[in-house]
């Protein structure tokens, strides 16, 4: 069965929010417990498995925010974004263990390498792209050893040294001794890390055929494959296209060219964000339903399935046949698009899954 997560609503987030539009707003996203808790409860009611809590200097701390919002929910999982290089592995494990105890294990980690060298330097991290992945591998090895709780952890590595590492807390969850680890990124380094340390490789979309080809080694290694994807759904395909075009035109009208994603990409060392930016410049439609029109303004995760509920459900099943089992979704505005998904798309997906199982 496919698993669906949704990106958490940011504090003060407006309809049509893009990275570019956000940069122009004087008010920055602060944690805003009332609307964010309401969003989480709506996700729960709609049958969404969990929310992705982003990380970045522009945002609140995701671990602290998850602790606060997690208490307002009872079933929703918090997929906490995490980067190595910001804290000691023992401290991260201690914080995640504490969170797991507060939320009865409703915690997983979305491990990312960071997309901007400038932002990383603000956190005292001066490593380049591939070194960051190498450090993350060491970081996760230590974290997993601490989660195993099978004796003191001693590691003398290239990036970390730990002597007699142990913690009084453990990861509290039904039938798990550590959180599930999603590994984000499209580069060879990210894929290697997913195979060596991850449970799921989380990537940006492509055509189902391309996704299937890239997924084969992951599935062979026993890893799941997930997609970060946006949705623009409506009662008819025509309406969905109108919404999509309006989103794009609104950005063109209100956001100056220099603030668009190109500037961010020029300073980013993310392989897959850059690649997606190039793809979007060449092709507006990767498949009849998969649209790149908002990448230029909203960033790489804005590659969107556009259509009516049947078309979107069908496209999700196409990805399932390509080896994908999880999705982190988003839309504009987040709550309304999640509601459309939960009420119209998800029942169709489940129906198609049941039909496939019966055959």
């Amino acid at each position, binding site marked *: 069965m496919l698993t669906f997560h949704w990106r958490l609503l940011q504090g003060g987030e407006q309809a049509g929010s893009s990275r570019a539009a956000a940069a122009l707003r004087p008010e*920055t*996203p*602060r*944690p805003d*417990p009332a609307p964010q808790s309401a969003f989480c409860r709506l996700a729960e009611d709609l049958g969404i498995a969990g929310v992705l809590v982003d990380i970045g*200097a*522009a*945002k*609140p*701390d995701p*671990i*602290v*925010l998850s*602790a*606060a919002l*997690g*208490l*307002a929910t009872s079933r929703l999982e918090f997929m906490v974004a995490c980067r190595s*290089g*910001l*804290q*000691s*592995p*023992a*401290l991260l494990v*201690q*914080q995640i*263990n*504490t*969170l797991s*105890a*507060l939320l009865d294990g409703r915690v997983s980690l979305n491990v990312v390498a960071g997309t901007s060298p*400038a932002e990383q*330097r*603000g*956190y*005292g*991290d*001066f490593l380049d792209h591939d070194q960051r992945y190498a450090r993350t591998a060491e970081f996760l090895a230590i974290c997993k050893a601490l989660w195993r709780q099978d004796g003191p*952890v001693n590691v003398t590595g290239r990036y*970390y*040294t*730990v*002597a*007699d*590492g*142990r*913690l*009084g*807390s*453990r990861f*509290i969850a039904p039938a798990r001794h550590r959180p599930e680890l999603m590994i984000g990124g499209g580069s060879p380094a990210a894929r290697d890390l997913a195979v060596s340390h991850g449970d799921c490789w989380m990537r940006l979309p492509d055509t189902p055929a391309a996704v299937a080809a890239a997924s084969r080694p992951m599935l062979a290694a026993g890893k799941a494959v997930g997609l970060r994807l946006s949705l623009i759904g409506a009662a008819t395909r025509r309406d969905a296209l109108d919404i999509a075009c309006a989103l794009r035109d609104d950005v063109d009208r209100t956001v100056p060219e220099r603030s668009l994603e190109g500037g961010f990409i020029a300073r980013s060392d993310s392989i897959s964000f850059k690649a997606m930016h190039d793809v979007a410049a060449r092709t507006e439609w990767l498949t009849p339903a998969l649209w790149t029109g908002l990448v230029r303004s909203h960033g790489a995760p804005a590659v969107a399935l556009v259509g009516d509920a049947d078309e979107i459900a069908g496209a999700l099943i196409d990805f399932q046949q390509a080896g994908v089992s999880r999705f982190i979704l988003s839309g504009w505005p987040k709550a309304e698009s999640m509601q459309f998904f939960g009420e119209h798309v998800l029942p169709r997906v489940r129906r198609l899954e049941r039909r496939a199982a019966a055959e």
Partner: protein
Amino acid sequence: MGLRFHWSMSAAGDPDRATKARSQVSGIPDMDAHVEFCRVAEQCGVEYLLTACGFHRPDALVLAAALGMVTARIKFLVAVRSGLFNPTVFAQQVNTISVLTGGRIALNLVNGHSDQEQRCYGDFLGRDQRYARSDEFLDVCRALWAARGPLTHHGRYFRVENAVLNTPFLAPGRSAPELYVGGASAQAVQQACRYDACLLTTPAPPEELAARLAPIRARGGRAGLIVGLIARPTRAAAVAAAEQLLARAGGAARVVHRSFRAQSQSAAFAAAFDQSLDREWLTPTLWTGAVPVMGPSATALVGSYDDIAAALLAYRQAGIGEFLFLGWPDLEEMMRFANELSPRVREQEAALC
């Protein structure tokens, strides 16, 4: 300003505070017990609850964030050591908590007890270097809290370039958290002076404390005392309660604390432990009898409500403006504090003004 009263939350949900080895203590927070602890503290007029840090405990910041969401008035004094995270990340976590809780967070900077524990976090500095690094950690954090633009810092222990945090520290009338420094050594005193922090120190007779606090008083700084409380209607009842506490803790605990003392680098803890072996009563109310069994944090004010109110006022004279109490068990002692001690202290304070 009147005396300020805080309480340690480190034994919430643990009736046998400080009698077990740290490796035997559960780091899994009992949320119901913590919420109950916070509610009673709010009712009793306690200002800050200390969330302690250590490898054997839940994470202090995450716990404070969660408890902040289910309480309305109580504030959290979160213990922090440098060397566990980059200051930018730390400031981002603290800022996030401040926004979520209406600014109900302050920081208690501690240096760490032992090299051994620090190494489990990948920290291989010695005790004195840890103080130097904590200074730099605070420098970066304070610069981030004061920043009007990107912050660049190239120091000995930390290097950050163009750090920007969009989530600010938000609290009524403050743009940065209130700071405390835990300890009794010259370095701790210096650090408290340097950062206008309240020195949260360990008990000694008032005249001895006055000497320790001289550099702080000279510059108009603040000081607080961490001390246990065993207050009863009569001195005899209080002494009996203290003896019962000793009997309950038992001999196994003695071994635990002897071995902890052997490893500890904390000047404050070592001094308190050693002194307790010489003398059981440092003043007519300041009792160290439980220290060999329950550790230095078991140094307690023992006596009648009137005795202890007078002792608190004597400390006030010596330069102590705040108290962080512990009790056995905490909540019962906290209610005695609220019903019996606090009214006596407030009345005598008013008479002094």
